[in-house]
């Protein structure tokens, strides 16, 4: 009797184990299919960038290049091996760097101090002030493009890197303030209160107490702003043209205005070059990157 029972149990267990293994296999299979889905375009971009144009026409999307040739990359970067007049990325890459650094630094600093003032020095109506920032993260930029273009013109900084820095700082502070405010709201007021009793002022507390414990949120904010500014096309395309354009605009021009003969290998090399900075940030600091994404969209 007892034996029969154990046998039955054993069989049941073996059954469910087998079922489990099958489930696991299906599970991993589906996960693998999606890996292929997400990686395919990247794979195609990479192999295409190393092919020559005749190779591209003869082979197909997935065929491997016959050898590692960097010609397309050189052409995409500084126009080497091609006659003048074509767009290449090098100057615009530097434009974007000159744009990103100040825009990120200024907007992050303002965001940190705003978030601190909103949470640790509460005053009447501060939640309404926060609401103004919060709603600012949602506005479709089409609603501000026309007056912004005029304002930049009046200030004499239209079609310049400085103009773009201003634009990115202005619309970036809504996000940076939101990030920092949400972070500071979750840390205890005790230390700030104690410091205030000791007579420490607004800025002393900020630099001595708040800033040292803000590293995680500063990293999130910097990564978010860096990605936003680097990847921006709308502002770049609207407020700049010619020599002061940022990299996304240059990439788009390169793809659209290439010479009569399409150079898909150069297009792909250029697209990879444009994507590399943000990809590196993502790979090095993936967790902070995701935190920023979720913080930037799941409010409150």
């Amino acid at each position, binding site marked *: 009797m007892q034996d029969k029972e154990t046998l039955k149990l054993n069989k049941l267990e073996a059954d469910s184990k087998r079922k489990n293994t099958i489930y696991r296999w299906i*599970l*991993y299979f*589906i*996960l693998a299919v*999606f*890996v292929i*889905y*997400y990686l395919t*375009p990247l794979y*195609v971009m990479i192999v*295409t960038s190393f092919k020559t144009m005749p190779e591209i*026409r003869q082979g197909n*999307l997935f065929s491997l290049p016959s050898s590692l040739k960097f010609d397309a990359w050189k052409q995409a970067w500084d126009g080497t091996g091609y006659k003048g007049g074509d767009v290449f990325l090098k100057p615009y890459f530097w434009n974007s760097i000159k744009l990103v650094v100040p825009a990120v630094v200024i907007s992050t600093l303002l965001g940190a101090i705003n978030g601190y*003032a909103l949470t640790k020095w509460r*005053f009447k109506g501060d939640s309404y*002030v926060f*609401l*103004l*920032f*919060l*709603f600012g993260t*949602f506005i*479709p*930029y*089409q*609603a*501000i*493009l*026309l*007056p*912004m273009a*005029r304002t930049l013109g009046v200030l004499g900084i239209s079609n310049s890197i400085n103009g773009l820095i201003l634009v990115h700082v*202005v*619309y970036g*502070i809504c996000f940076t*303030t939101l990030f920092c405010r949400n972070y500071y709201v979750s840390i205890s007021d005790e230390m700030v209160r104690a410091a205030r009793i000791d007579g420490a*002022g*607004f800025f002393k507390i900020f630099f001595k107490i708040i800033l040292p414990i803000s590293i995680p949120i500063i990293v999130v904010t910097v990564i978010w702003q860096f990605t936003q500014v680097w*990847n*921006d*096309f709308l502002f770049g395309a*609207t407020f700049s043209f010619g020599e002061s354009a940022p990299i996304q605009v240059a*990439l*788009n021009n390169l*793809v659209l205005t290439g010479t009569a003969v399409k150079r*898909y290998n150069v*297009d792909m090399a250029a697209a990879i070059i*444009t*994507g590399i900075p*943000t*990809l590196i*940030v*993502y*790979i090095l600091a*993936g967790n902070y990157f995701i935190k920023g994404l*979720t913080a930037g*969209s*799941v*409010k*409150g």
Partner: protein
Amino acid sequence: MFWLKKNLPKLVLTPSLGILSWFVYGFIFWTIYISFTKSKMLPRYELWGIDQYIRLWKMPRWHVAVENLLIFTVLFIILCIAIGILLSILLDQKIRAEGFLRTIYLYPMALSFIVTGTAWKWVLNPTLGIEKFAHDMGFETFKFDWLVTPEMSIYTIVIAGVWQSSGFIMAIFLAGLRSVDDEIIKAAKIDGAGIFSIYSKIILPMMRPVFMSAIVILVHLSIKSYDLIIALTSGGPGISSDMPAVFMTTMAFHRSEVGLASASAIMMFLTVSAIVVPYLYSELKREDAR
């Protein structure tokens, strides 16, 4: 001196608030005002009533843009959420190499829409792209020319958009799943519930707030979508893959229709507000309740 000390936090916020009220709210009011004028190439300030809005809604091109936006938004939301839920549930089964898989699913989010569009434009190339690959594999009659087919071009934007954003939806659903108490799952398992019904009947209904955020994010992304269209189809062939954001910039900067462009921008602004304001309201109420 005492006054300064007392008001320092407000003083610190003043520059940012000044910037906000000028560059965000002031500009929106300017655009609203201009949408009620006859402005063409340059803004004119005599009021003209709602004629720009009437003109806008009489324009066939605007109807194409709005229709495309609807198609795109619906498909974009359904596909991103379906893929996001599927992948997040699968990844939640104590998977080996979860971090590695997550990295792969999310990396497109680090790429700009221009890079995404450039890559997919090549993959979907009607002669040398997927079509050629299928031919080489022996499917001689296979045809894939959505990029240059007016009726299908909008769907190429869906394909690329879903590729870029679905990993992100996976990430927020995964975060949601991780915050579900393990005890609930254990209890349901003891009661004999299958893994499938545990998710569909117990866990997913608990994630209403995550669904809400995901939908708001995706709608917001699709209304703002501009770069991807420019890089992939430039709104073409013809105007077949036009969307409101593209319509607005074309009218504003190429057709000298500042008044009309403002009216279309305000339509976009109102649509976003109609979705975001109730969402923020409920989110803030939730926060107050906490």
